């Protein structure tokens, strides 16, 4: 109703300072809402990037074949095959699955790998290591190996090995020198050190070595197939659903990173709950503020409301005038609060540049639209009580004859 809108805007502009204060109050509430959204979202992003960023989002591992047991018809165990020291289980037909998995929506990279244990010897020094054979070109697909390099390159190839700083120090190994790597199956080969990384993760820098997939095939006597497929997703939050899809597609046991991260998920969940809690409080503050301001205005304008009713304004019209005021306050407060929030978040680093020690505020997770919509809805809800009070004003007593 155009005319009710005119009266509502006139009421708001008639007491500019009061309206400005009210809008500012709402804007601060919206600002808190947006700030909390950006902070909680950014924190989750930051924590996940820190903890899960270098992990495979979905992992398919060769199922170790259970040792066979021979049981008599009476139920006695007759013979047990000892679990082999060398893992022979493999995803034999991995090659056919890799392109299939790469085609699944949301999948960023698929890295087939051969993993195993071994010893590295140089002179009298011996170190136990975990060997990962990676397809050349996919060195940084899962773990950002390129980003951690301190010497040489991450690029793998025949006869090359990349290992951690700590291990290089332990073996007194320098770039370009050779080292002997013997697999747990007894196959040995001499490799040239082509790159040294430092991830900051002690265990990793001390005992993980990377070789090309073909080198690993020789070492672990695996002429075909792989032992592990690691998958990186565009959105790590989609791991559960994507893992299900890959399972359905390939029949392989695709395990999302969340399977082993219940505690992390709980912590993030608790953090999100805290965020909802604070945001709800921000909204409640807005609602209470708007309701009390409008209730006061209703009271102050009782004689006018009485006049309008006497002149033929219906109760619905009066309700509309006050609800419109609430909606306008919500809209103005919502928009200015969102603008305020956005400009306050602008100076903070983007989500790709979060650093420890600064607030990880993610400007893209401000929920601006939601904040504005909820504020308008909240302000309208807040105006219902004052509007009804206004509509119930008795013209006779209000005009005070």
């Amino acid at each position: 109703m155009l005319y009710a809108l005119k009266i509502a805007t006139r009421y708001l502009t008639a007491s500019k300072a009061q309206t400005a204060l009210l809008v500012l109050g709402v804007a601060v509430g919206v600002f808190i809402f947006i700030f909390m959204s950006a902070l909680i979202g950014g924190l989750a992003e930051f924590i996940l990037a820190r903890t899960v960023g270098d992990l495979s989002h979905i992992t398919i591992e060769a199922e170790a074949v259970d040792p066979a047991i021979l049981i008599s018809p009476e139920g006695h165990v007759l013979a047990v095959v000892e679990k082999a020291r060398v893992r022979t289980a493999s995803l034999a037909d991995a090659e056919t699955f890799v392109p299939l998995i790469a085609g699944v929506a949301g999948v960023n990279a698929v890295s087939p790998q051969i993993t195993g244990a071994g010893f590295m010897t140089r002179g009298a020094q011996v170190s136990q290591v975990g060997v990962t054979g990676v397809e050349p070109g996919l060195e940084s697909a899962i773990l950002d190996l390129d980003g951690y390099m301190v010497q040489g390159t991450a690029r793998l190839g025949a006869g090359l090995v990349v290992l951690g700083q700590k291990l290089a120090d332990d073996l007194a190994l320098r770039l370009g020198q050779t080292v002997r790597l013997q697999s747990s199956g007894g196959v040995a080969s001499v490799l040239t050190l082509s790159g040294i990384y430092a991830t900051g993760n002690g265990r990793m820098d001390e005992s993980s070595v990377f070789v090309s997939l073909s080198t690993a095939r020789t070492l672990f006597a695996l002429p075909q197939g792989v032992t592990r497929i690691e998958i990186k997703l565009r959105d790590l939050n989609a791991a559960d659903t994507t893992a299900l899809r890959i399972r359905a597609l390939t029949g392989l046991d695709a395990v999302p990173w969340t399977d082993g991260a219940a505690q992390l998920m709980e912590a993030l969940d608790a953090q999100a709950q805290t965020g909802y809690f604070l945001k709800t409080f921000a909204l409640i503050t807005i609602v209470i503020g708007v309701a009390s301001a409008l209730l006061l205005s209703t009271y102050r304008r009782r004689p006018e409301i009485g006049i309008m009713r006497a002149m033929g304004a219906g109760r619905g019209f009066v309700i509309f005038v006050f609800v419109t005021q609430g909606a306008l306050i919500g809209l103005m407060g919502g928009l200015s609060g969102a603008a305020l929030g956005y400009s306050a978040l602008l100076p903070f680093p983007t989500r790709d540049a979060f650093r420890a020690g600064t607030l990880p505020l993610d400007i893209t997770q401000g929920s601006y639209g939601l904040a504005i919509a909820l504020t308008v809805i909240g302000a309208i809800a807040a105006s219902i009580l004052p509007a009804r009070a206004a509509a119930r004003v008795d013209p006779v007593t209000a005009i005070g004859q």
Partner: protein
Amino acid sequence: MSALLEVRDLVKTFGVGDAATRVLRGLSLTLEAGEMAALLGPSGSGKSTLLTILGTLMKPSSGGYTMLGQDLIAAQDSELTAFRNLHIGFVFQFHNLLPDFTALENVIFPTAVREGRETPSARARGRDLLVRMGLEERINFPSVKLSGGQKQRVAVARALMNGPELVLADEPTGNLDRVSAMQVMDLIAQINREEGTTFLISTHDEKIADLCRRRIVVGDGLVTG
């Protein structure tokens, strides 16, 4: 002349039990179309109470009220709102105008609230009425900046906006000096003559009452003269 409105045996009691005040005690009254009547009586005699009942702003405790052939006792709140808007104009003593609106905006309110917007034709009529009230200089003046007499003339213009058959005025000149009071009354008398609008004006002022062709005196909750 034909009867514009008729009230029969109006009783209005405020409060209940021992605290109950019987203000109207079976008052009956007929107003003809085109009348200009003064409503007189001592303070507390029930003049304002009668005017608010006639204005459909309040219902009597008992009694009958018909205007323009409609039973206004049985009518719903929303029907009364529409009826008032079209057929009854008000001029009150205080709190007459909407303070955040101009003189013209106040005058056209009764039409705008019905039509949902301020139409050009409503504005034109509002302007005409204000000119007629001698307020051409104050058409777009904020109403709070008008003098008391000017405010009452704007209120009269607003009461006439929808061309009502009846205008109820409760001590419209009670706050004004003699000159302003006479100015307002002259305008009312002129409208009454020219348009045949019925006026019922409560007042304590004999000089004002003398300008009306009929005198209705209330006392003890009844019409006494």
